[in-house]
C-alpha cells in the first residue's frame, strides 16, 4: 500500500464541497414528485429522516475507514480477505460507473425534453466524457476544485426560488403528520437516490489531510444538503397543488418557469444550462472513484482505466433509449444505494468493530 504524498491531499474543509456537490445532482430536479407520491405533503419530514439516515451511515463509514486506515479497498481486504474483499471492491466500481451513467443520461434526457429535442445522446455524452477525462487526469485536487466551484458558482440559483413565493400557499403543508409513519418512511426510502453521493468518501478518504477535522465538515455538509432539500420540498409543495405536482416530472425546473427578471423572460433555460456545472463533479468524482478502485485492486494505470470507463459510460448512455429505461436505471441504482447505505455499511461496520476488538485482544 503506497501512502499518498502530502501535496496531493486536500484540506479537511474541502470535504464539505466534495460531499455536498456529489449529493446535489440530478435528483434535486425532480425528487418532490417521487416522495409526495407516498407521503403527500408530509414528505418534507421524510427528507429530514433520510438526512438523519445519511448522517448515521456517514459516521459508520468514517469508523470503518479509520480502523482500516485506508480506502474501502484496503478495508475490504482487511475485513473479508483478499479475494472476497476485491470482489466487493469491483462491485463498487460497477456501482460508481452506474452512477456516472445515470447522472449523465438523466441530464441528457432533461436537455432533450426541455431544450433540444433533437440533440444526439452520443454527441453530448462523448463531449461530456472528454471533459471528464480532461479534468480527472488532472488528479484528485482538480476534481475537488470542480466540486468546489460547482457549489460556489451556482449557489445563486437558490435565490431564484424566492420568485415562487408570489404563488406559494404554505397552508397546504398543514396539518403535519396527516400520513402514517409507514408512508413517511417509504418516502424516505424513495429519497435515497437524491441523497446518495457521499459514499464516494470511501474511496477518497486517504486523500484527506486531517481526518478528525474533516468529520465535522462532512456532517455539516450532509446537514446543509438535507436542509436545502427540505426547503426546496417545502417550497415546491406550497407552489404546486398535490395532483398538479404529480404531473410534473421535474418539479424544480417547472418552478423556474415562473421566474422572470427584467433581462431574462424565462429562467429555466439558464438554469438547465447552469446545471452542467452541478452535474460535472458528480460525473468526475464518480469516474475518479471507479478508476481509482480498479487501479488499487488490479494495479492498472488509472489513465487507461479512466478512458475505458468513459467509453463504457458513453456506450451505455446511448443504449438507454427512452425514459422508461432511464427511470429503471435510476430506480435500480436508488435501491442498490439504499441497501448499500443501510445494509452493507452497517454490517461492515459491525464486522470491523468485532474484528478490531478480537485483534486487539490477540
Amino acid at each position, binding site marked *: 500500500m503506497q501512502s499518498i504524498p502530502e501535496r496531493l491531499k486536500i484540506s479537511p474543509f474541502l470535504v464539505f464541497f466534495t460531499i455536498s456537490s456529489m449529493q446535489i445532482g440530478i435528483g434535486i430536479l425532480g425528487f418532490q414528485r417521487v416522495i409526495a407520491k407516498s407521503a403527500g405533503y408530509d414528505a418534507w419530514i421524510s427528507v429530514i429522516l433520510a438526512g438523519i439516515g445519511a448522517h448515521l451511515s456517514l459516521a459508520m463509514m468514517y469508523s470503518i475507514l479509520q480502523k482500516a486506515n485506508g480506502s474501502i479497498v484496503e478495508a475490504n481486504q482487511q475485513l473479508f480477505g483478499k479475494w472476497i474483499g476485491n470482489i466487493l471492491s469491483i462491485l463498487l466500481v460497477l456501482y460508481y460507473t452506474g452512477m456516472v451513467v445515470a447522472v449523465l443520461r438523466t441530464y441528457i434526457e432533461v436537455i432533450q425534453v426541455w431544450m433540444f429535442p433533437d*440533440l444526439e445522446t452520443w454527441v453530448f455524452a462523448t463531449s461530456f466524457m472528454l*471533459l471528464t477525462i480532461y*479534468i480527472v487526469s488532472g488528479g484528485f485536487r482538480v476534481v475537488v*476544485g470542480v466540486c468546489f466551484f460547482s457549489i460556489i458558482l451556482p449557489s445563486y440559483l437558490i435565490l431564484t426560488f424566492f420568485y415562487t413565493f408570489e404563488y406559494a400557499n404554505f397552508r397546504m403543508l398543514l396539518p403535519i403528520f396527516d400520513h402514517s409513519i409507514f408512508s413517511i418512511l417509504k418516502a424516505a426510502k424513495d429519497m435515497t437516490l437524491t441523497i446518495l453521493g457521499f459514499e464516494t468518501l470511501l474511496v477518497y478518504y486517504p486523500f484527506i489531510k486531517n481526518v478528525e477535522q474533516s468529520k465535522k465538515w462532512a456532517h455539516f455538509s450532509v446537514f446543509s444538503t438535507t436542509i436545502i432539500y427540505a426547503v426546496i420540498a417545502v417550497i415546491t409543495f406550497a407552489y404546486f397543488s398535490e395532483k398538479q405536482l404529480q404531473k410534473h416530472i421535474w418539479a424544480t425546473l417547472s418552478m423556474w418557469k415562473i421566474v422572470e427578471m427584467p433581462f431574462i423572460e424565462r429562467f429555466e433555460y439558464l438554469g438547465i444550462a447552469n446545471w452542467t456545472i452541478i452535474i460535472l463533479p458528480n460525473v468526475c468524482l464518480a469516474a475518479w472513484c471507479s478508476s481509482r478502485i480498479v487501479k488499487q485492486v488490479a494495479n492498472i494505470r488509472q489513465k487507461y482505466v479512466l478512458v475505458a470507463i468513459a467509453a463504457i459510460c458513453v456506450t451505455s448512455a446511448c443504449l438507454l433509449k427512452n425514459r422508461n429505461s432511464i427511470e429503471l436505471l435510476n430506480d435500480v441504482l436508488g435501491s442498490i444505494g439504499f441497501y448499500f447505505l443501510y445494509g452493507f455499511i452497517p454490517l461492515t461496520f459491525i464486522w470491523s468493530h468485532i474484528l478490531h476488538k478480537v485483534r486487539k485482544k490477540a
Partner: protein
Amino acid sequence: MFRGFRRDKTPNQRKEQRPARTTWELLRILGQSMDFETQVLKNPHSQQHFWISYILPLIDFEIVQKNILSYLLYSPIQTLKDIEQAIPVEDVIVTSNVTIIEEKLHEGYVLIQLNEWANEGVLIKAQRNVIRNISIPEVEFSVVGPKEAFIESLETNLHLVRKRIPSNRLTIKMLKVGSLSKTSIAVLYIEGIADEENVNTVMQRISDIEFDEVIDSSYIEQIISDNHNSPFPQLLDTERPDRVASILAEGKIAVIVDGSPHALIVPTTLVEFFSSFEDYFLNWYIASFFRLIRLFSVAFSILITPIYVAALNYHYEMIPRDLLGTLVTSRREIPLPPILEALFLELTIELLREAGARLPTKVGQTIGIVGGIVIGTASVEAGLTSNVLLILVALAALASFTTPVYKMGNTIRLMRFPFLLFAELWGLLGVVFCFCFLMGHLLRLTSLGRPFLEPIYPLRIADLKDALIRLPFSKQARRPKQLRPEQPIRFSAKKANKKKDIDE
C-alpha cells in the same frame, strides 16, 4: 515537465567549431570577423611590445584612450603584473584561461598580451554602454505613483530595484543562458522572506534552459512556464520597478533578463493579472470597486457575444418581449446568420486592433477612428450586421482592454472564439459547457507548481484580502499564505488596528 528545448543537447551545438585551445587559436578565430582588431604597440620606456585585441563595437574608445593606453605607453611596464597594478580600472584580470578570455572579449574587455603566442594576457574592462534613458511606463501606465520603467540594461534595472530595497537581505543570483546570446539573468528575492523551495525551482528551471538566443524575458517566460500549451500566461511580467520591489517584499521572486525592459514575477495567480499596480495608490474601496469592475468587464467581454449568438439562435423565449421588437427589426435585413455576423464583427475589431498595434502611433490612432466609425456605421447601413450587435461587440472590445496586463488581454480576446463556436453549437448549454472546460483548464494550471487559481481554489480566506478586492493596508499585516513565506508577518497588526477613543 522540463521537456521542450531544455536539457536535450541540440545537434547544432555539436556541429559548432571545436573550441579554441590556446589564446592564439582563439584570436585567429575571432580575427575572421572584420570588427575584431589587434594592434601592436611599443612602450617607449621599456621597449616592450603589447598586443592589444578587442572587438571594436563593444568597447568604449574613450576609456581605452584615457585609462589604458596612456598608462601602457607612459609608465615603465615589464610584466603583466605591472599592467594590473598600473591601470586604474576596477576590473583587471590576469588569466590564461581561454574560455574566460573569449567570454570577456565578448563583454567588451580589451585583451593585452606581451607576446603574440602567449596564452596569458590581461583583460581590462572597457565596455561601451549604449542605453536609453529611463522613461515612463507605457504598458502599465498609472496616473498617480512612480513614473519609472525598466529599460534594456540589467545594471540599471537592478539599480532601480536595489534603491527601493536598501537591505542586505535582498539577494541577487546571476545566471547565464543561451549558447549564442550568453544573456545574463538575475533572480531577485529577499532572503528570509521568500520560500527557499520557490527560489530553488526558479534557479533550477532557468539553469536547465537550452536555447541559443535569448532575446527577451518573454522567452524565459514561455520556456519555464508549467504548461506550454496554455493560452494563459503563467508568469506575470511587469515594467514597473516599484511593482517588483513590492512583490519582493511579499515573498515572491523576480527574474530580470539583460536586454529586456520587463521583469518576470513568479509564482503568480490568476487574480494578480487583473490587479493593476495603481490599485495600491488609491483608497482601498475605490481600488476594490475598480477591481470588481475589471472582473465584471472580463466576464462581459468573453460572454456577451456568445450569449447574443445563443439567444438569437436558440433561446428566443428568454429575450424580454420589449427587446424582441428591437432585435427583430435590427436583424431582419441581415442575410448572415448570427454566428457569421458575430464573427465578422469580432474579426473586424481584432483587425483594427492588430493594425493599430503594428502601425506607428499617429497612423494607428487614425486607423482606430476610421475603422471604428466608418466601418461600423457602414456595415450597419449596408445591412451586414445589426446595430445591437455592433454595440455589444464594441463594448466587449472596450471591456477587454481594461485588463491591466497586456498578455492577459490577448488571452481574453482569444477566448471569445471557442465560446462563440460552442454557443453556435448548443446555445447557452454550449456556453456553460465551454466554461466548464475553461474551469477545468484553470484548475489544472500551476505557476511554478503552485495552483494558479489561488486564493479562490484552494480557498485561502486570509489571502482574499488582496485578491478580488483590496482591503486597507492595516489589514494586510500578513504576507500571502500561498507563497509559504518564511516570515509571514509584515508588521504588527495590533498597532495598525489600534482604536482610539473619542478625544484622545
